[in-house]
């Protein structure tokens, strides 16, 4: 860079500068601590307006006015508040907090204010979206009708998620909630869905591991991570999900599809409780403030499937809630269950029984239902839920004695096999066509003769065979979303051939 160039660019920048003798509103900090400031003055400040705090060294820190009281204003401070002290000056900005949005944020790790924290340089974008925005109204929406493929057999077959839906993932610690969400993100590869993973109050080591995994699988090419770590302040944790959804709304407004994961909203509620108590708002049940329901409902309402007139974009939300010892009737879990369009229940018992994903098929539901399934899946998975439900009922009975009639035995055998087939390893999402094939095999009873222990091996040999010899069937399913009668016969033939090669249950018993 030459000297002349420097002078010229400086001149250019300075030419647009004009000093304005404007009247400004100012206030003074009268109390500060724990990320909260009480301010005198600022009589005309508006609720959720951004404030500018000036430290003793002349540095600027931003804040957000939350409480407007008779003699003072309560504000949260976004960033380092160590340098601020009583008597420091506060100005109005007459702006609402907004975050940078656009293609530039994809593949980045940012904080709740949209500032990069991954050390990959500044984010260059001219578009900003306000973090708080009223959700789309009735006229702007249409019903959810496209599937969002998670790549997880048990979810795609019996509790399908649609684009624009809000599906809660709930369970105790260490039951694989995050794993489910990350698998879903990984499965969006090549499906033209932008993903935003919002980490609220998570350990930064865990986030580093997740980002590394996403990079390894190539998922970071369409993913943004919004990070409000456990070491950050509560105000940033409170803002993070709103920042994440604002980034998603940009793509939704452009007619694209977005998946936003909030991991997790229990910690978000705790951060908001901390802020509220420090702002001296009255505590209610479990010491949460009165508007903790609105806190989550206004966030999750922003998930939408827009009408075709508005481009038909969608924003799918996967909030995560951590329960304590399986207690789903606590305050926050019940709130979020009632807001979302269904929930995925993960249980510790199932997890340690080796059923992973540890999904409780009885308590998990998707209120959108089969509208969000491809036709082929609808066809093969229809019986699956019923099979599982009957199996669970009988399983309890079967414990008492072995004198069971042939029909009951049959149902038990089927149930065990369905459960076994629905198991799936982490980071191994499956394409829809493969899911259709294996579920077709189990729900039509072709696998009833195969020993349960051999099912996993059978599954992988079926997939290898299909990919090698019947790639056109798989391609047809992926393309048309249907399982034609022709393809069905071929698929059936291949499955039967393969089953014939396997050792049978009776033969094993004879040995």
């Amino acid at each position, binding site marked *: 860079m030459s000297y002349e160039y420097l002078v010229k660019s400086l001149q250019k920048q300075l030419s647009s500068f004009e000093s304005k*003798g404007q009247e400004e*509103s100012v206030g003074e900090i009268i109390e500060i601590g724990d990320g909260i400031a009480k301010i*005198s003055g600022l009589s005309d400040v508006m609720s959720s307006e951004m404030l500018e705090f000036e430290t003793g060294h002349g540095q600027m820190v931003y804040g957000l006015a939350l409480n407007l009281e008779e003699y003072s204003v309560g504000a949260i401070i976004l960033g380092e508040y160590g340098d601020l002290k009583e008597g420091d000056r506060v100005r109005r900005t007459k702006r609402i907090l907004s975050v940078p949005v656009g293609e530039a944020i994809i593949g980045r790790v940012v904080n709740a204010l949209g500032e990069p924290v991954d050390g990959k340089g500044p984010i260059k974008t001219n578009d900003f979206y306000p973090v708080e925005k009223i959700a789309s109204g009735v006229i702007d929406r249409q019903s959810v009708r496209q599937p969002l493929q998670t790549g997880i057999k048990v979810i795609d077959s019996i509790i399908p998620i649609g684009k624009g839906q809000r599906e809660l993932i709930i369970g105790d610690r260490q039951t694989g909630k995050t794993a489910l969400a990350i698998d879903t993100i990984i499965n969006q590869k090549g499906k033209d869905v932008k993903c935003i993973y919002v980490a609220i109050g998570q350990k930064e080591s865990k986030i580093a591991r997740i980002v590394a995994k996403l990079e390894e699988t190539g998922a970071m090419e369409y993913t943004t991570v919004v990070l409000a770590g456990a070491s950050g302040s509560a105000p940033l944790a409170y803002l993070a999900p709103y920042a994440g959804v604002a980034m998603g709304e940009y793509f939704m407004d452009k007619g694209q599809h977005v998946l936003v994961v909030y991991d997790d909203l229990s910690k978000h509620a705790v951060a908001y409780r901390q802020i509220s108590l420090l702002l001296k708002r009255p505590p209610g049940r479990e010491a949460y403030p009165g508007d903790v329901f609105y806190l989550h409902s206004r966030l999750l309402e922003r998930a939408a499937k827009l009408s075709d007139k508005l481009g038909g974009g969608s924003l799918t939300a996967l909030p995560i809630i951590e329960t304590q010892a399986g207690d789903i009737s606590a305050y926050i879990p019940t709130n979020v269950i009632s807001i979302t369009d269904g929930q995925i229940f993960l249980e510790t018992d199932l997890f340690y029984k080796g059923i992973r994903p540890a999904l409780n098929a009885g308590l998990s539901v998707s209120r959108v239902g089969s509208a969000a399934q491809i036709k082929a899946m609808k066809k093969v998975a229809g019986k699956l839920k019923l099979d599982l439900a009957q199996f669970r009922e009988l399983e309890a009975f079967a414990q008492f004695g072995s004198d069971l009639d042939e029909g009951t035995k049959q149902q038990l055998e089927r149930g065990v096999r369905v459960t076994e087939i629905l198991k799936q390893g982490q980071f191994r999402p499956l394409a829809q066509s493969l899911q259709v094939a294996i579920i077709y095999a189990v729900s039509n009873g072709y696998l009833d003769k195969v020993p349960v222990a051999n099912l996993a091996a059978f599954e992988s040999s079926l997939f290898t065979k299909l990919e090698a010899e019947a790639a056109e069937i798989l391609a047809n399913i992926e393309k048309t979303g249907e399982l034609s009668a022709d393809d069905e016969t071929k698929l059936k033939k291949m499955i039967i051939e393969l089953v014939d090669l396997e050792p049978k249950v009776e033969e094993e018993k004879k040995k």
Partner: protein
Amino acid sequence: MKDKNKVKILARSIYLASQNKTHRDLETVAANFSGYLKKHHLEKLIPEILTELENIYLAEQGIVAAQVSSTQKLSDTTLKHIETLLHSRSGKKVQIKSVLDQELLGGVSIRYNDKIIDLSLKNQLHNLTKQLNN
């Protein structure tokens, strides 16, 4: 509650209590008030309460107290000029207090109520930094 709020509330209460009171009653109010301060160990707040009381009095009388800071002493014509300017802005009588502040580097900064018109060199440099950073 921090002291600043206490001061505001105390100043307003003594102002309201002594409103429309005659000579004798005023003395009783003053005596009661000082008794109250003593009882609650608030004596150290008295200077602040008095300043606040002055502010309230000025506000109630429709007078705006303005503070004009500058690096050098301002001439009477300049002050007069500022006074008319503030009068036209607020529509109220203006009482100006002039202060010297070397930190401003140059220019003036006018503060009244919770408004500020900052024409100091320091503020302009600050704005310039902000623009160059963007």
